[in-house]
Structures are given as C-alpha cells and as structure tokens.
C-alpha cells in the first residue's frame, strides 16, 4: 500500500477508500474561485461495481493499492462466479461475476486474460479493447430489404445482444468494441 497525492491520480489508478478497492473511472481538476485546487473523482467499486464520487484537495494523501498483474486462463462461469487458473502456478480461483458483469460477454472458455490481483482478491479483469465473436443467432434478412443502413439484432456465442447491419449471418464473425458493446465490422477469416 502506498500513498499518492490526489493531484497525481489518473484514470485507471487503483485506490482504497473507506476500506473498499476502487478504480478511477474519471478525473477532473477544479479550482474554486479563490482557493486550493481540488480533484473530483468518479470511482468504480471493484467488489460491487457501485459508483462513488469523491472530491479531494490536490494535496490530500490517498491510499493507492499496489496491484499484481497475473496471467490467468478463463475456465468457465457458474452463473455466480468466474473460474480462472493462474497460468504460472496453475492455482484455480473464483472471481464474483457481480463486480465484472460485462466480462462474461467477452471471455471464451480457455482464453487467457491479465487479471489485476491484490491480497488474493481479483480486482479487475483486463479485457481487450476489441473482441471478435461468432454470431450464434441471427434472423434471416428479409428478401428485398435493401435499405442502406438497415439494422437488426443478433446474439453472439457469448450471449451478447448486439445491433448489426442487416447483411450479417449466423456463423459469421463480428468485431465488437468492448467498452461500448457496439458492432464495428465483419471479420472474414
């Protein structure tokens, strides 16, 4: 555990506030009319996913969490927890889905991810910015429907519902922007 001045905190910094681990989602500097500089932070709780807004003076000391990055293989999810295996030690461990619900749509069994760990607890699953997924279910395009820009919904192999152009078919691979959950392009392997 190290101390960090609030003014040095950046997006992505891991912090301990009220004994709970958080990651900084947004950071904004504010200088009130006549007074010291402050930093406004939007924090995401890494256990509950709840959002906390805090305001610190730039000179305040905050507790920064010293995290480890561990390569781990995603084994499966049981609906409550994700099960991972440390790629170096082969230790298996669980990560509650509650705090990282979004991850279920971007992890395929057997794939390896970087996990942020602190005191035996997994704080964060580092997802790639883009993910290619197979379309598991898609409606057939209606014949004659050639309107440019027409869209429909498909379901990916990870159960993600996503809006795509009308020409996408079942069994094709599509690229998704992980942060927004939006379709980017069709992938031709």
């Amino acid at each position: 555990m190290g101390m960090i001045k609030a003014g040095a905190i950046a997006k992505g910094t891991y912090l301990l506030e009220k004994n709970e681990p958080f990651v900084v989602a947004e950071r904004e500097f504010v200088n009130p009319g006549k007074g010291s500089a402050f930093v406004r932070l939007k924090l995401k709780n890494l256990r509950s996913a709840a959002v906390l807004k805090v305001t610190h003076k730039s000179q305040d000391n905050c507790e920064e969490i010293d995290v480890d990055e561990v390569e781990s293989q995603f084994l499966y999810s049981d609906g409550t927890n994700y099960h991972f295996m440390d790629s170096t030690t082969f230790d298996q461990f669980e990560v509650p889905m509650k705090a990282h619900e979004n991850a279920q749509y971007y992890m395929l069994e057997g794939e390896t991810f970087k996990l942020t760990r602190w005191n035996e607890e997994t704080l964060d699953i580092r997802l790639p910015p883009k993910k290619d997924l197979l379309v598991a279910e898609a409606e057939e395009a209606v014949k004659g429907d050639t309107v440019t820009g027409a869209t429909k919904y498909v379901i990916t192999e990870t159960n993600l519902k996503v809006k795509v152009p009308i020409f996408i078919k079942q069994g094709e691979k599509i690229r998704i922007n992980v942060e927004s959950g939006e379709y980017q392009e069709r992938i031709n392997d």
Partner: protein
Amino acid sequence: MQFKHEAIKERAVMYRGIRDFFDRCGYLEVDTPLLTDSPIPESHIELFQTRRIQPDGTSYPLYLIPSPEIWLKMALASGSSSLFQIGRCFRNGEQMDKWHRNEFTMLEWYGVDKTAGDNLIVMQEIIEVAAGSVNSEAGEEVSGVIRKISMEEAFREFAGFSLESALEESGLSEINRASSGYPSALAEVSDIFRNRLKEKKLPTGEMEKESAADLFHRIFLTFVEEALPADRPLAITHWPAFIPTLARNIPETPWADRWELYIRGVEVANCYGEETDEKLLKKYWEDESPDKTNPDFRWPQLIAGGMPPCSGTAVGLDRLLALVRGDNNLKGLDLFPIHDSMLR
C-alpha cells in the same frame, strides 16, 4: 497545428463587439503591462517567474501577471473613469485539461460607483454580444436570462444545512477580518464544517489542519457545485466574507459583495464589489503574500489612497467563446497555443 478557422474569425468579431459595447457605455479601454516586479498576492495561484538581467549582469525576478487587477485598480485610484481591458494572463501549476490553460485571455472591467449587482446586468449584455458573434445558435442554457442564487440558498438546497446559521453560531457574522476575535471565530466555523463533513461520512483526509476556506470549498465542490441547475446561466451571489478576497463586505452581514457565473456548469466569470478600506486591504496583503513577514504594502496604500467605490468583473473569454459556440473544450479556439499537444 490545428485550429478552427471559423472560431478564429468569431473571436475577432466577439472582441470587436465587446469593445463597441464598452465604448458606447463610456468605458475607457486600457492596455497594462504583462510583466511586473510585484504581482497581486494570491496564495493559491502559481506564477510564471522570469528574471530581468541588468547591464552589470545582476538580476532580479519579474513575474507574468495572473490578472491585470492590480494595474486597473491603480488606474482607478489615480483618477480614471470606468475602464476595461482585454489581455493575456498567465497561471502556472494549472492542470492542462479541457477548460484550463496556462495562458488565456481575460476581459476585466471596472464600473465606478457600481455594485456587483449592477455588473451582473452588464454580464448579461456581454453574453449576448458573445452569442451574437458566432455562427451557431446558442441555446437558453448559454444565453438565457442569468439565474441568481445566493450561497445560502444553494447550501440549504444542496448541502442540506444553513450556512448563515453556521456563520452566526461561530460569531463570524458580527466581526471582520481585522478584529482580534477573528481567528477563534474562524476556528469555530471550521469545526462546524468538519462536523458536517463527518456526518456525511466523507473521507476526512487532512481536514484537521485545513482552513475554513478549504473546508467550505470541500462542501461546496462535493455537494453544491455539481448539483446546480445548468439550464440557464447561473450566478452564485453572496459568498461568505471569510474567504480571503478583495471583495468588500456587505455591511451588517457575513456576506461578501461577490458573484461567480457558471454557464453549462463551467465557471466563466467572477465579480466583486471592491474593497477600498486601507486596513482590510493591508490585512489581505499580509495574509496572502508569499513572504508573510515582508508584504509589499505599496499597492494597498496606493489603491486605498484614491480608489472610488466600484465593482470589477473578470471573464475568461476563451471559455465564453467555447460555450457560445457549443464546444466542450478550448481546443482549436486560438492560434498556436503551446498546450494543445499536452491536452489530455
């Protein structure tokens, strides 16, 4: 090097409009130095320092002005009528982000025999001039009628307690900065603020050592500022007089004659009914000077010696231009800024 050609033209139209407006109202445009050997002391502003090298090789420090305030007040004290300036200001140590630059353009005007309330009417006109200078249509949230809300109203509504009661309880409503009981009253109001923060289970940080002004700003920034309505420009009036500024006290009240203007939640301007009392001016210099044991009392003496009752307003013109254009940051609004490549 990227800038928005249209914004460069709009800036020129806006400057011309502001100059025409003040000219019609009988204000004198002045142009004062950017370099000074003795800047106005503001303990929260970091300065850019340079050195004047003399022919014999010795040197002494000079500073880029953080605002033209001191010069404009000196001009008033030496007999000038109402006046204004559009000029560059420099602040070091600022975080470079979407609304902050180290170098920026400030409009500052002083109306003789005017109060902060009078200047709010002028501010509305300036917003109109700015909005009329750009091609895009500014909505109500930018050019609507300025909503006035006092700090007391804002605290009751958004922080859940009466600031006025806190000031009364501590005795701050009765006395001024130069009174002997002032430090203990400040300590008392700090305790009240600390308790309010603790009740709300906020991270207490270094709070025990913090000044009343810092504690006030913690509450203001955490509960009030973000909750303020942004559907129209908004002026927060009647700031607590214990925050050290050069705004005068409204007699018989704990409030300073001061407002700050927000447009779309962004702070754009601030205004004081100006302090002219020599004793209080000197006290301010003493408290805010970097070298508290050796404040430079030349300015407060000169200002108090002849400054008429007046009110001054400072407007960040880069921010105003961005806001009336509908932009969400300062990017591309001026030519060749040093910071664009550093914006995060």
